[in-house]
Protein backbone atom coordinates (compact mmCIF):
# COMPACT_ATOMS: atom_id res chain seq x y z
CA UNK A 1 0.00 0.00 0.00
CA UNK A 2 2.80 2.33 0.89
CA UNK A 3 4.59 1.64 -2.38
CA UNK A 4 1.51 2.44 -4.31
CA UNK A 5 1.08 5.68 -2.50
CA UNK A 6 4.59 6.74 -3.44
CA UNK A 7 4.08 5.76 -7.00
CA UNK A 8 0.97 7.87 -7.17
CA UNK A 9 2.80 10.79 -5.70
CA UNK A 10 5.65 10.55 -8.13
CA UNK A 11 3.27 10.05 -11.00
CA UNK A 12 1.24 13.09 -10.14
CA UNK A 13 1.65 16.03 -12.48
CA UNK A 14 1.82 18.46 -9.57
CA UNK A 15 5.17 17.05 -8.43
CA UNK A 16 6.36 16.10 -11.85
CA UNK A 17 5.90 19.48 -13.51
CA UNK A 18 8.45 21.49 -11.50
CA UNK A 19 10.81 18.53 -11.33
CA UNK A 20 10.83 18.25 -15.10
CA UNK A 21 11.31 21.98 -15.44
CA UNK A 22 14.37 21.84 -13.24
CA UNK A 23 15.88 18.86 -15.02
CA UNK A 24 15.51 19.99 -18.61
CA UNK A 25 18.52 22.37 -18.70
CA UNK A 26 20.75 19.62 -17.37
CA UNK A 27 19.67 17.18 -20.02
CA UNK A 28 20.17 19.78 -22.72
CA UNK A 29 23.66 20.56 -21.45
CA UNK A 30 24.58 16.88 -21.19
CA UNK A 31 23.28 16.26 -24.66
CA UNK A 32 25.43 19.04 -26.10
CA UNK A 33 28.52 17.85 -24.25
CA UNK A 34 28.10 14.24 -25.25
CA UNK A 35 27.30 15.28 -28.79
CA UNK A 36 30.41 17.41 -29.17
CA UNK A 37 32.63 14.74 -27.67
CA UNK A 38 31.06 12.03 -29.79
CA UNK A 39 31.37 14.04 -32.97
CA UNK A 40 34.97 14.87 -32.18
CA UNK A 41 35.86 11.24 -31.66
CA UNK A 42 33.72 9.89 -34.46
CA UNK A 43 34.29 12.44 -37.16
CA UNK A 44 37.75 13.75 -36.47
CA UNK A 45 39.71 11.10 -34.60
CA UNK A 46 38.38 7.70 -35.58
CA UNK A 47 40.23 6.00 -38.44
CA UNK A 48 38.57 4.74 -41.58
CA UNK A 49 36.88 1.35 -41.79
CA UNK A 50 38.85 -0.93 -44.01
CA UNK A 51 35.76 -2.46 -45.62
CA UNK A 52 33.37 0.42 -45.95
CA UNK A 53 35.64 3.42 -46.32
CA UNK A 54 34.51 6.70 -44.82
CA UNK A 55 30.87 5.84 -45.49
CA UNK A 56 30.79 3.91 -42.26
CA UNK A 57 30.72 7.19 -40.31
CA UNK A 58 26.97 7.19 -40.79
CA UNK A 59 27.02 4.64 -38.02
CA UNK A 60 27.46 7.45 -35.49
CA UNK A 61 23.92 8.56 -36.01
CA UNK A 62 22.35 5.51 -37.55
CA UNK A 63 22.91 3.27 -34.57
CA UNK A 64 21.95 5.79 -31.87
CA UNK A 65 18.82 6.72 -33.80
CA UNK A 66 17.91 3.05 -34.26
CA UNK A 67 18.46 2.31 -30.61
CA UNK A 68 16.48 5.30 -29.47
CA UNK A 69 13.59 4.45 -31.78
CA UNK A 70 13.29 1.05 -30.14
CA UNK A 71 14.03 2.25 -26.65
CA UNK A 72 11.52 5.08 -26.72
CA UNK A 73 8.89 2.64 -27.86
CA UNK A 74 9.67 0.39 -24.93
CA UNK A 75 9.46 3.30 -22.52
CA UNK A 76 6.12 4.35 -23.97
CA UNK A 77 4.85 0.80 -23.62
CA UNK A 78 6.06 0.77 -20.02
CA UNK A 79 4.19 3.97 -19.26
CA UNK A 80 1.15 2.55 -21.00
CA UNK A 81 1.27 -0.56 -18.83
CA UNK A 82 1.52 1.56 -15.68
CA UNK A 83 -1.32 3.73 -16.90
CA UNK A 84 -3.62 0.81 -17.64
CA UNK A 85 -2.79 -0.93 -14.38
CA UNK A 86 -2.86 1.97 -11.94
CA UNK A 87 -4.85 4.56 -13.83
CA UNK A 88 -2.23 7.27 -13.31
CA UNK A 89 -2.76 10.55 -15.12
CA UNK A 90 0.91 11.04 -15.89
CA UNK A 91 1.42 7.89 -17.97
CA UNK A 92 -0.76 8.96 -20.84
CA UNK A 93 0.90 12.36 -20.94
CA UNK A 94 4.37 10.84 -21.01
CA UNK A 95 3.52 8.37 -23.77
CA UNK A 96 1.97 11.22 -25.67
CA UNK A 97 5.03 13.38 -25.22
CA UNK A 98 7.45 10.68 -26.30
CA UNK A 99 5.68 9.57 -29.46
CA UNK A 100 6.76 12.32 -31.88
CA UNK A 101 10.39 12.03 -30.82
CA UNK A 102 10.25 8.27 -31.20
CA UNK A 103 8.73 8.61 -34.64
CA UNK A 104 11.46 11.04 -35.65
CA UNK A 105 14.11 8.64 -34.40
CA UNK A 106 12.56 5.81 -36.41
CA UNK A 107 12.50 8.08 -39.40
CA UNK A 108 16.15 9.02 -38.89
CA UNK A 109 17.08 5.36 -38.61
CA UNK A 110 15.39 4.69 -41.93
CA UNK A 111 16.79 7.79 -43.57
CA UNK A 112 20.38 7.23 -42.53
CA UNK A 113 20.05 3.53 -43.25
CA UNK A 114 18.83 4.33 -46.74
CA UNK A 115 21.70 6.75 -47.29
CA UNK A 116 24.07 4.08 -46.10
CA UNK A 117 22.48 1.31 -48.10
CA UNK A 118 22.90 3.07 -51.43
CA UNK A 119 26.72 3.01 -51.40
CA UNK A 120 27.03 -0.29 -49.52
CA UNK A 121 24.34 -2.46 -51.06
CA UNK A 122 23.67 -0.44 -54.20
CA UNK A 123 20.04 0.21 -53.29
CA UNK A 124 18.25 2.77 -51.18
CA UNK A 125 15.94 0.19 -49.86
CA UNK A 126 15.77 -3.56 -49.69
CA UNK A 127 12.97 -5.54 -48.16
CA UNK A 128 14.81 -7.44 -45.50
CA UNK A 129 13.57 -8.30 -42.04
CA UNK A 130 15.28 -5.60 -40.02
CA UNK A 131 14.48 -2.80 -42.41
CA UNK A 132 10.89 -3.95 -42.68
CA UNK A 133 10.38 -4.28 -38.98
CA UNK A 134 11.88 -0.84 -38.43
CA UNK A 135 9.42 0.50 -41.00
CA UNK A 136 6.64 -1.20 -39.07
CA UNK A 137 7.91 0.56 -35.96
CA UNK A 138 7.51 3.89 -37.73
CA UNK A 139 3.99 2.90 -38.74
CA UNK A 140 3.23 1.94 -35.16
CA UNK A 141 4.34 5.35 -33.94
CA UNK A 142 2.22 7.02 -36.57
CA UNK A 143 -0.68 4.72 -35.81
CA UNK A 144 -0.42 5.61 -32.13
CA UNK A 145 -0.42 9.31 -32.88
CA UNK A 146 -3.28 9.00 -35.36
CA UNK A 147 -5.34 6.95 -32.93
CA UNK A 148 -4.88 9.29 -30.01
CA UNK A 149 -5.55 12.28 -32.24
CA UNK A 150 -8.77 10.71 -33.47
CA UNK A 151 -10.15 10.33 -29.94
CA UNK A 152 -11.08 13.60 -28.34
CA UNK A 153 -11.71 12.33 -24.88
CA UNK A 154 -8.20 12.26 -23.41
CA UNK A 155 -8.90 9.50 -20.91
CA UNK A 156 -10.16 7.22 -23.62
CA UNK A 157 -7.35 8.28 -25.96
CA UNK A 158 -4.74 7.36 -23.36
CA UNK A 159 -6.24 3.99 -22.69
CA UNK A 160 -6.77 3.04 -26.31
CA UNK A 161 -3.34 4.31 -27.29
CA UNK A 162 -1.78 2.42 -24.39
CA UNK A 163 -3.39 -0.79 -25.49
CA UNK A 164 -2.07 -0.28 -29.00
CA UNK A 165 1.42 0.33 -27.63
CA UNK A 166 1.28 -2.89 -25.66
CA UNK A 167 0.09 -4.87 -28.66
CA UNK A 168 2.81 -3.43 -30.88
CA UNK A 169 5.58 -4.11 -28.44
CA UNK A 170 6.19 -7.56 -29.99
CA UNK A 171 7.75 -5.71 -32.89
CA UNK A 172 10.72 -4.45 -30.88
CA UNK A 173 12.36 -7.81 -30.20
CA UNK A 174 11.69 -8.68 -33.83
CA UNK A 175 13.69 -5.65 -34.95
CA UNK A 176 16.45 -6.39 -32.54
CA UNK A 177 16.81 -10.09 -33.20
CA UNK A 178 15.85 -10.08 -36.87
CA UNK A 179 19.48 -10.23 -37.89
CA UNK A 180 19.88 -13.36 -35.80
CA UNK A 181 16.64 -15.08 -36.69
CA UNK A 182 16.78 -14.47 -40.40
CA UNK A 183 19.56 -14.43 -42.88
CA UNK A 184 19.56 -10.79 -43.87
CA UNK A 185 21.62 -8.25 -45.70
CA UNK A 186 21.75 -6.03 -42.66
CA UNK A 187 24.75 -6.41 -40.46
CA UNK A 188 24.53 -8.11 -37.11
CA UNK A 189 25.14 -6.65 -33.72
CA UNK A 190 28.74 -5.66 -33.18
CA UNK A 191 28.44 -3.91 -29.84
CA UNK A 192 28.80 -6.53 -27.20
CA UNK A 193 29.49 -5.84 -23.59
CA UNK A 194 32.07 -8.57 -23.13
CA UNK A 195 34.07 -8.30 -26.30
CA UNK A 196 33.64 -5.71 -28.95
CA UNK A 197 34.60 -6.22 -32.55
CA UNK A 198 34.90 -2.52 -33.16
CA UNK A 199 37.89 -0.27 -32.86
CA UNK A 200 37.96 1.41 -29.47
CA UNK A 201 37.61 4.98 -30.74
CA UNK A 202 34.74 4.02 -32.98
CA UNK A 203 32.99 2.30 -30.16
CA UNK A 204 33.45 5.25 -27.83
CA UNK A 205 32.31 7.68 -30.48
CA UNK A 206 29.18 5.65 -31.03
CA UNK A 207 28.42 5.30 -27.34
CA UNK A 208 28.89 9.02 -26.79
CA UNK A 209 26.57 9.79 -29.66
CA UNK A 210 24.06 7.36 -28.23
CA UNK A 211 24.21 9.22 -24.91
CA UNK A 212 23.73 12.49 -26.78
CA UNK A 213 20.59 11.14 -28.51
CA UNK A 214 19.36 9.79 -25.23
CA UNK A 215 19.69 13.07 -23.38
CA UNK A 216 18.20 14.95 -26.32
CA UNK A 217 15.14 12.68 -26.36
CA UNK A 218 14.61 13.07 -22.64
CA UNK A 219 14.90 16.83 -22.82
CA UNK A 220 12.48 17.21 -25.72
CA UNK A 221 10.00 14.75 -24.28
CA UNK A 222 10.01 16.51 -20.93
CA UNK A 223 9.40 19.84 -22.60
CA UNK A 224 6.50 18.42 -24.52
CA UNK A 225 5.16 16.70 -21.43
CA UNK A 226 5.12 19.98 -19.52
CA UNK A 227 3.02 21.60 -22.22
CA UNK A 228 0.64 18.66 -22.30
CA UNK A 229 0.29 18.81 -18.53
CA UNK A 230 -0.71 22.46 -18.60
CA UNK A 231 -3.19 21.82 -21.35
CA UNK A 232 -4.84 18.80 -19.79
CA UNK A 233 -4.96 20.10 -16.24
CA UNK A 234 -5.95 23.61 -17.16
CA UNK A 235 -8.84 23.65 -14.72
CA UNK A 236 -6.78 22.69 -11.70
CA UNK A 237 -5.48 25.15 -9.17
CA UNK A 238 -1.85 24.29 -9.64
CA UNK A 239 -1.95 25.12 -13.34
CA UNK A 240 -3.68 28.39 -12.59
CA UNK A 241 -0.95 29.14 -10.08
CA UNK A 242 1.73 28.26 -12.62
CA UNK A 243 0.13 30.50 -15.19
CA UNK A 244 -0.17 33.39 -12.77
CA UNK A 245 3.47 33.03 -11.74
CA UNK A 246 4.44 32.85 -15.37
CA UNK A 247 2.77 36.16 -16.19
CA UNK A 248 4.47 37.86 -13.24
CA UNK A 249 7.76 36.61 -14.62
CA UNK A 250 6.90 38.03 -18.00
CA UNK A 251 5.99 41.36 -16.47
CA UNK A 252 9.39 41.81 -14.86
Amino acid at each position, binding site marked *: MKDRFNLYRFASPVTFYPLAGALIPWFVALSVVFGLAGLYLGMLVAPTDFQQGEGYRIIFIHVPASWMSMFIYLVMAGWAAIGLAFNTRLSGMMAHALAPTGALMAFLSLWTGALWGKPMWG*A*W*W*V*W*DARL*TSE*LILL*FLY*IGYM*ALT*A*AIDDTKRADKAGGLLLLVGVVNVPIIYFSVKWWNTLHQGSSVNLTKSSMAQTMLWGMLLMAMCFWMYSIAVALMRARTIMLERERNTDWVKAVLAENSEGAAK
Partner: protein
Amino acid sequence: MLKIITSVIGRDLKLAMRRQADIVSAVFFFVIVVSLFPLGIGPEPDLLRKLAPGVLWVAALLATMLSLPRLFADDHRDGTLEQLALAPHPLGLVVTGKVIAHWLVSGLPLALIAPVLGIQFDLSTDALIVLTGAILLGTPALSGIGAIGAALTLGLRGGGVLLSLLVLPLYIPVLIFGAGAVDATVSGLGGEGHLSLLAAITFASLGFAPWASAAALKIALE
Protein backbone atom coordinates in the same frame (compact mmCIF):
# COMPACT_ATOMS: atom_id res chain seq x y z
CA MET B 1 -25.23 28.21 -57.80
CA LEU B 2 -21.54 28.62 -57.13
CA LYS B 3 -22.32 29.72 -53.63
CA ILE B 4 -23.94 26.46 -52.67
CA ILE B 5 -21.07 24.44 -54.16
CA THR B 6 -18.46 26.44 -52.31
CA SER B 7 -20.35 26.29 -49.05
CA VAL B 8 -20.65 22.51 -49.32
CA ILE B 9 -16.93 22.26 -50.07
CA GLY B 10 -16.15 24.56 -47.17
CA ARG B 11 -18.22 22.53 -44.75
CA ASP B 12 -16.79 19.20 -45.84
CA LEU B 13 -13.22 20.45 -45.69
CA LYS B 14 -13.84 21.86 -42.25
CA LEU B 15 -15.16 18.48 -41.10
CA ALA B 16 -12.14 16.74 -42.62
CA MET B 17 -9.80 19.15 -40.86
CA ARG B 18 -11.63 18.63 -37.62
CA ARG B 19 -11.02 14.92 -37.89
CA GLN B 20 -7.54 15.26 -39.37
CA ALA B 21 -7.13 11.51 -39.24
CA ASP B 22 -9.06 11.38 -42.51
CA ILE B 23 -6.55 13.05 -44.74
CA VAL B 24 -3.50 11.56 -43.13
CA SER B 25 -4.99 8.10 -43.04
CA ALA B 26 -5.94 7.94 -46.72
CA VAL B 27 -2.40 8.86 -47.64
CA PHE B 28 -0.96 6.35 -45.22
CA PHE B 29 -3.20 3.63 -46.47
CA PHE B 30 -1.83 4.35 -49.92
CA VAL B 31 1.73 4.26 -48.63
CA ILE B 32 1.21 1.05 -46.72
CA VAL B 33 -0.53 -0.80 -49.52
CA VAL B 34 2.19 0.21 -51.94
CA SER B 35 4.81 -0.98 -49.47
CA LEU B 36 3.07 -4.30 -48.96
CA PHE B 37 3.74 -5.45 -52.49
CA PRO B 38 7.50 -5.60 -52.38
CA LEU B 39 7.09 -7.56 -49.15
CA GLY B 40 4.86 -10.10 -50.78
CA ILE B 41 6.69 -10.26 -54.07
CA GLY B 42 10.33 -9.92 -53.18
CA PRO B 43 12.89 -7.21 -53.57
CA GLU B 44 14.27 -7.56 -57.12
CA PRO B 45 14.53 -3.98 -58.47
CA ASP B 46 13.87 -4.97 -62.08
CA LEU B 47 10.68 -6.73 -61.21
CA LEU B 48 9.63 -3.88 -58.94
CA ARG B 49 10.18 -1.29 -61.64
CA LYS B 50 7.86 -3.18 -63.94
CA LEU B 51 5.26 -3.45 -61.23
CA ALA B 52 5.40 0.12 -60.08
CA PRO B 53 2.73 1.77 -62.25
CA GLY B 54 0.25 -1.02 -61.75
CA VAL B 55 0.79 -1.22 -58.02
CA LEU B 56 0.63 2.52 -57.50
CA TRP B 57 -2.56 2.83 -59.47
CA VAL B 58 -4.25 -0.11 -57.83
CA ALA B 59 -3.32 1.34 -54.44
CA ALA B 60 -4.71 4.73 -55.47
CA LEU B 61 -7.94 3.06 -56.55
CA LEU B 62 -8.23 1.24 -53.26
CA ALA B 63 -7.36 4.28 -51.15
CA THR B 64 -10.01 6.35 -52.91
CA MET B 65 -12.49 3.56 -52.66
CA LEU B 66 -11.94 3.06 -48.97
CA SER B 67 -12.94 6.61 -48.21
CA LEU B 68 -16.06 6.41 -50.39
CA PRO B 69 -18.53 4.75 -48.00
CA ARG B 70 -18.32 7.77 -45.75
CA LEU B 71 -18.96 10.23 -48.58
CA PHE B 72 -22.69 10.23 -47.85
CA ALA B 73 -22.99 7.79 -44.96
CA ASP B 74 -22.31 10.30 -42.19
CA ASP B 75 -24.75 12.78 -43.63
CA HIS B 76 -27.30 10.03 -44.04
CA ARG B 77 -26.98 8.67 -40.56
CA ASP B 78 -27.36 11.97 -38.77
CA GLY B 79 -30.15 13.25 -40.98
CA THR B 80 -28.19 16.00 -42.73
CA LEU B 81 -28.77 14.36 -46.09
CA GLU B 82 -32.53 14.73 -45.72
CA GLN B 83 -32.01 18.39 -45.02
CA LEU B 84 -29.77 18.76 -48.06
CA ALA B 85 -32.34 17.02 -50.22
CA LEU B 86 -35.00 19.42 -48.92
CA ALA B 87 -32.93 22.54 -49.54
CA PRO B 88 -34.25 24.82 -52.29
CA HIS B 89 -31.58 24.05 -54.87
CA PRO B 90 -30.88 21.01 -57.02
CA LEU B 91 -29.30 18.14 -55.10
CA GLY B 92 -26.87 17.63 -57.98
CA LEU B 93 -25.06 20.85 -57.08
CA VAL B 94 -24.66 19.74 -53.49
CA VAL B 95 -23.23 16.46 -54.69
CA THR B 96 -20.83 18.30 -57.01
CA GLY B 97 -19.53 20.15 -53.99
CA LYS B 98 -19.15 16.96 -52.03
CA VAL B 99 -17.30 15.24 -54.88
CA ILE B 100 -14.86 18.12 -55.18
CA ALA B 101 -14.26 18.12 -51.45
CA HIS B 102 -13.71 14.39 -51.52
CA TRP B 103 -11.11 14.78 -54.24
CA LEU B 104 -9.34 17.54 -52.35
CA VAL B 105 -9.15 15.35 -49.29
CA SER B 106 -8.44 11.97 -50.83
CA GLY B 107 -7.20 12.39 -54.41
CA LEU B 108 -4.92 15.38 -54.28
CA PRO B 109 -2.75 14.12 -51.39
CA LEU B 110 -2.22 10.85 -53.26
CA ALA B 111 -0.88 12.72 -56.26
CA LEU B 112 1.48 14.63 -54.03
CA ILE B 113 2.90 11.57 -52.29
CA ALA B 114 3.03 9.29 -55.33
CA PRO B 115 6.42 10.49 -56.62
CA VAL B 116 8.03 9.69 -53.27
CA LEU B 117 6.72 6.15 -53.45
CA GLY B 118 7.79 5.91 -57.07
CA ILE B 119 11.36 6.42 -55.90
CA GLN B 120 11.05 3.34 -53.69
CA PHE B 121 10.35 1.44 -56.88
CA ASP B 122 13.31 3.01 -58.63
CA LEU B 123 11.32 4.90 -61.30
CA SER B 124 13.01 7.49 -63.53
CA THR B 125 12.27 11.20 -63.22
CA ASP B 126 10.23 11.26 -66.43
CA ALA B 127 8.12 8.40 -65.25
CA LEU B 128 7.61 10.10 -61.90
CA ILE B 129 6.34 13.27 -63.56
CA VAL B 130 3.93 11.36 -65.76
CA LEU B 131 2.81 9.31 -62.79
CA THR B 132 1.98 12.42 -60.78
CA GLY B 133 0.19 13.98 -63.73
CA ALA B 134 -1.80 10.86 -64.40
CA ILE B 135 -2.89 10.57 -60.78
CA LEU B 136 -3.84 14.25 -60.71
CA LEU B 137 -5.90 13.81 -63.85
CA GLY B 138 -7.44 10.48 -62.98
CA THR B 139 -8.43 10.77 -59.33
CA PRO B 140 -11.27 13.27 -59.89
CA ALA B 141 -12.89 10.63 -62.08
CA LEU B 142 -12.46 8.15 -59.25
CA SER B 143 -14.24 10.49 -56.85
CA GLY B 144 -17.02 11.14 -59.34
CA ILE B 145 -17.69 7.55 -60.29
CA GLY B 146 -17.30 6.54 -56.67
CA ALA B 147 -20.00 8.99 -55.64
CA ILE B 148 -22.52 7.09 -57.76
CA GLY B 149 -21.57 3.84 -56.08
CA ALA B 150 -21.63 5.41 -52.64
CA ALA B 151 -25.10 6.81 -53.28
CA LEU B 152 -26.41 3.52 -54.61
CA THR B 153 -25.19 1.52 -51.62
CA LEU B 154 -26.19 4.12 -49.06
CA GLY B 155 -27.77 2.69 -45.97
CA LEU B 156 -27.27 -0.91 -47.03
CA ARG B 157 -25.52 -2.73 -44.25
CA GLY B 158 -23.16 -4.66 -46.52
CA GLY B 159 -22.29 -1.26 -47.98
CA GLY B 160 -18.51 -1.11 -47.95
CA VAL B 161 -17.86 -4.31 -49.78
CA LEU B 162 -20.85 -4.01 -52.05
CA LEU B 163 -19.63 -0.57 -52.99
CA SER B 164 -16.28 -1.90 -54.08
CA LEU B 165 -18.07 -4.48 -56.13
CA LEU B 166 -19.98 -1.80 -58.00
CA VAL B 167 -17.24 0.74 -58.31
CA LEU B 168 -14.06 -1.18 -59.00
CA PRO B 169 -15.18 -2.48 -62.41
CA LEU B 170 -15.99 1.09 -63.41
CA TYR B 171 -12.55 2.16 -62.26
CA ILE B 172 -10.83 -0.24 -64.65
CA PRO B 173 -10.60 2.19 -67.59
CA VAL B 174 -8.98 4.78 -65.35
CA LEU B 175 -6.56 2.13 -64.13
CA ILE B 176 -5.67 1.00 -67.64
CA PHE B 177 -5.03 4.47 -69.04
CA GLY B 178 -3.37 5.71 -65.87
CA ALA B 179 -0.96 2.82 -65.56
CA GLY B 180 -0.62 2.78 -69.34
CA ALA B 181 0.61 6.37 -69.41
CA VAL B 182 3.42 5.56 -66.99
CA ASP B 183 4.24 2.31 -68.74
CA ALA B 184 4.42 4.07 -72.07
CA THR B 185 6.78 6.68 -70.64
CA VAL B 186 9.00 4.04 -69.09
CA SER B 187 9.27 2.23 -72.41
CA GLY B 188 9.88 5.54 -74.20
CA LEU B 189 6.65 5.70 -76.19
CA GLY B 190 5.29 8.88 -74.59
CA GLY B 191 2.18 8.88 -72.45
CA GLU B 192 0.28 11.82 -73.99
CA GLY B 193 -2.35 9.68 -75.65
CA HIS B 194 -3.19 7.92 -72.45
CA LEU B 195 -3.23 11.15 -70.51
CA SER B 196 -5.67 12.83 -72.86
CA LEU B 197 -7.99 9.85 -72.67
CA LEU B 198 -7.75 10.08 -68.90
CA ALA B 199 -8.70 13.75 -69.05
CA ALA B 200 -11.68 12.90 -71.21
CA ILE B 201 -12.90 10.32 -68.74
CA THR B 202 -12.51 12.77 -65.89
CA PHE B 203 -14.49 15.53 -67.56
CA ALA B 204 -17.25 13.20 -68.63
CA SER B 205 -17.60 11.67 -65.19
CA LEU B 206 -17.49 14.98 -63.35
CA GLY B 207 -20.27 16.34 -65.52
CA PHE B 208 -22.47 13.30 -65.27
CA ALA B 209 -21.77 11.65 -61.94
CA PRO B 210 -23.25 14.26 -59.56
CA TRP B 211 -26.65 14.05 -61.20
CA ALA B 212 -26.69 10.29 -61.25
CA SER B 213 -25.64 10.28 -57.61
CA ALA B 214 -28.34 12.78 -56.74
CA ALA B 215 -30.94 10.53 -58.31
CA ALA B 216 -29.59 7.54 -56.37
CA LEU B 217 -29.66 9.53 -53.14
CA LYS B 218 -33.32 10.42 -53.63
CA ILE B 219 -34.09 6.72 -53.97
CA ALA B 220 -32.10 5.92 -50.84
CA LEU B 221 -34.05 8.53 -48.89
CA GLU B 222 -37.49 7.02 -49.62
